[in-house]
């Protein structure tokens, strides 16, 4: 049986990865497609994004805001709006 791996993101401690994933999934679920993520959730997401294996590439010139958009027709995911206006999606699952 795999060992539980506690995770800490943005000062929030999770007993296991699954809890962190659920937490991020809940944040995603609060928003409608095309809705901008509010400041409090953005702070947490920004910390989570740093853990992304391609964080540098995704952040680019800097994060202006996060928003939710459809990935495929049936699912939604987080997107970054960069300070230069470009947008890019990222998977929260890669951040845990």
């Amino acid at each position: 049986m795999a060992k539980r791996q506690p995770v800490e993101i943005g000062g929030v401690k999770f007993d296991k990865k699954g809890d962190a994933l659920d937490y991020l999934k809940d944040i995603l679920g609060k928003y409608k497609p095309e809705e901008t993520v509010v400041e409090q959730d953005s702070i947490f997401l920004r910390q989570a994004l740093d853990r992304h294996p391609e964080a540098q590439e995704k952040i680019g010139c800097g994060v202006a805001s996060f928003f939710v958009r459809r990935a495929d027709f049936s699912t939604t995911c987080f997107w970054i709006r960069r300070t230069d206006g470009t947008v890019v999606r990222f998977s929260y699952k890669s951040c845990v």
Partner: protein
Amino acid sequence: MSLQVLQNWLESESGIKNQLNQLRIWSARKSIVSSLQNVVDTDQDHDWQKLLLAASIFSQSDDKRHQEYALMIAQSALCFSDEPLIRDAGSLILARLSNHRTINLAQEQHLIEPNLGTRVGVIEQLLWNKRKLNSEIVFNEKHSISGNLFQVDLWSKLSDADWLSATAPTAAGKTFTILNWLLSQFSSKKCHSAVFVAPTRALVTEIERQLNELKIDHNLNSLKITSLPLRELNGRKEPFITVFTQERLHIFLNSGSSPQKFDIAIIDEAQKLSDERRGVILQDALERLCRENNKCKVVFLSPHSKNPEVLLEDAPENVITAVVPSASSTVMQNLIVAEQVPRKPTEWKLSLSIEGELNELGGFKLIDRPTNAAKRLAFVALALGKSTTGTLVYVNTASAAEKIATLIYDGLDDIDLSEDSELSELSESCKKIIHPKFQLVKLVKRGVAFHYGNMPSILREEIERLFTLGEIKFLVSTSTLIEGVNIACKTIVVRGPKKGIMHHMSPQDFWNLAGRAGRWGADFYGNIVCVDVSKADVWPYGLPQKTAYPIKRETDTVIQQYDDLIEYITNRPAMDTNDLDHKLEHVTAYLMSWQIREGSLKDASPIKKISPEAAQNIEELVQPLLESIDVERKIVSANPGISVIALQRLLEFFRNQSEDMESLLPLPPEDPDSVDQFVFIFDVINLTLAPVFAPQQRVLPCALTTWDWMRGKTLGRMIAARLERERKNGSYESDEELPYAKLIRETMSQVEEIARFYAPKYLGAYLSVLRQHFVEKDQIDMFPDELTYDLFLEFGVSTKTLISLIGLGLSRTSSIELAEYYGRSEMSEEEVLTRLHSGEWESLDLPPLVKREIRNIVKQKILEGM
């Protein structure tokens, strides 16, 4: 003793009430005898002389009850007396009641000899001629009719009043009168442009067709009559009439640089101002018409309203107003109860209700044991309607309509009308236009059909036509009939009627429906048969008492719920679209729009009806919310029902977007990414304007329907594609398991609700705000000018050729079928007409109904001299 006292005495217990009731029951029995197996004794003697004298006295009264007594006696004598003299006397009473169409019917059925006027004494002859003259409505030198009391009153008041409100049930002939009056205003050059507003597309098509037929009688062959809200019409030099729903009227008023100034506006089914969904939009449309031209003459029509005068409250000062109240019926109506004989499920009896008291008429047998509610209704209708025509069965849902129609069909297994060419053409067209498994394909072969709002108009209209002709004997219908399709019948059969799925029908709606029983000029009697009235779960309020509609504008209703409104407006700025309250949002939008336009709410009609303090409070609440609004005023006016807060939220959304501005524009339907873009736009609409395409899983199906519809896919192909998707889904193991009827119905309903209603309305708002954003960013050159999505969606086409075909009067179905053979997509109406004139379409493989429609249009255009 004055005449009035005498009339009142006659109908009292000490007068002849008893004899009147006896006659009433006797005539009802006689009228329905052919449908019954055993009839309670119909062998009765009546003192005709006394009764006819009473009828003559009653006929001079203005009281509707008295007039109905006169009609009842006259028709009983006319239809059921053995003596020619008595029948003649009954006809003379009908002449007093201005009911010449029923006299003509009696002549056609050989109940009386022709030339009644010449068989009576000199004085009566003079009176006969005088009455004929008084009831004569002269449309022009060549055409006139003998109007009934209501029509005569309406015609005379129309000549003086600027604002008029008339109320009458379906059979009174109000639409026919008003359309002729409207055309007479054009032939006498008193009017240059007019709009007829009807609540449903079905009614719009019907009115447009009637006007096109009637205009020939008025020598107005070239008068433009259209239901297309085309920009080119705005400011047109030649006279024209438009026939719109309230939504299309807004599209038209938004289309030009300044809205059209109409001379005449006719608001049909004006009681819809009370409607939760469309009331505010209709009121807003009317106010816009009057703002553009405060001399616009306005006519309201409503079915049997209690307070028609309330519609005139908003008339400008110093205009002449008039009310034309409902007159008595033109056809006798029997309110009949059908109940099962205790412990004998197949044996039933009918009773006539008079002032709540039941009087047995006779009994009849059902075809089989009615083991469920649907069978009880279907078998009663079948038993009563089998040997006659014009039986209408009211049901609560589209699925019930199909089920009941199928049960009736099964009971008619000894009938095969497939030799009837019109019915087999209808069947063939249903197969081609909808799907081979669409239930109507087989049903119509035995003269049975169903009818509901989401069916394509080409089929619905054909069904209505064949039902009126008697070729379709049974029509099972949902509430589309109350919503305003001018169809009458001989008998209506109902069981626990509801409006929608949840709510039991109000007595007003019931009587509006019942108003269709009895076709004036075709029937002497109309029957309303109520099944299982003693069952409290079916008829919780018992047999509906005859009552009229109380009209109350939706804006007034909501504003008088003051506390709820105040709370809603207070919370509105921070509100998520999911929390919007449809009812309160519409009125909030109306008030905000008024405040922005006028700077104060004080003159808004619903505000004038509440206390000055309450009015002040609302204004003080609304005003600060508008300070940070910078959506253009004309956008706010052009989008009734969508609050300025929602529009501003959309504008802010655009301003916060950092991507290429073009990525916000919809794509033409032929672009492969068009659906994805609709998904994006519908997401934005759900987020900022209203959750009309929510929840988010619904957005893709809505986008697909909208896309298919707009690129002109036929309904048949949309249904086939839906069935194919379901097959691939794997939820059903074989084709036989597919719920064809349900999937066909659902596709039709999505087209009507999503593609034709919500998508054009909200895409129109989206585009108007986006345009402002492009202007702000100095990028207006990039904004396509021809983005007429509202028009394309409303009609489900995206090429000029198709719009031209629809503009000629063809249905969408016919236009698309025909355009499949046309290579060019930019043809004008004239070019399209030239091709139709050439007759090449005759050799094409088109459904029979489509060919008939094209033939009729070509004929009409020849008459118009085009």
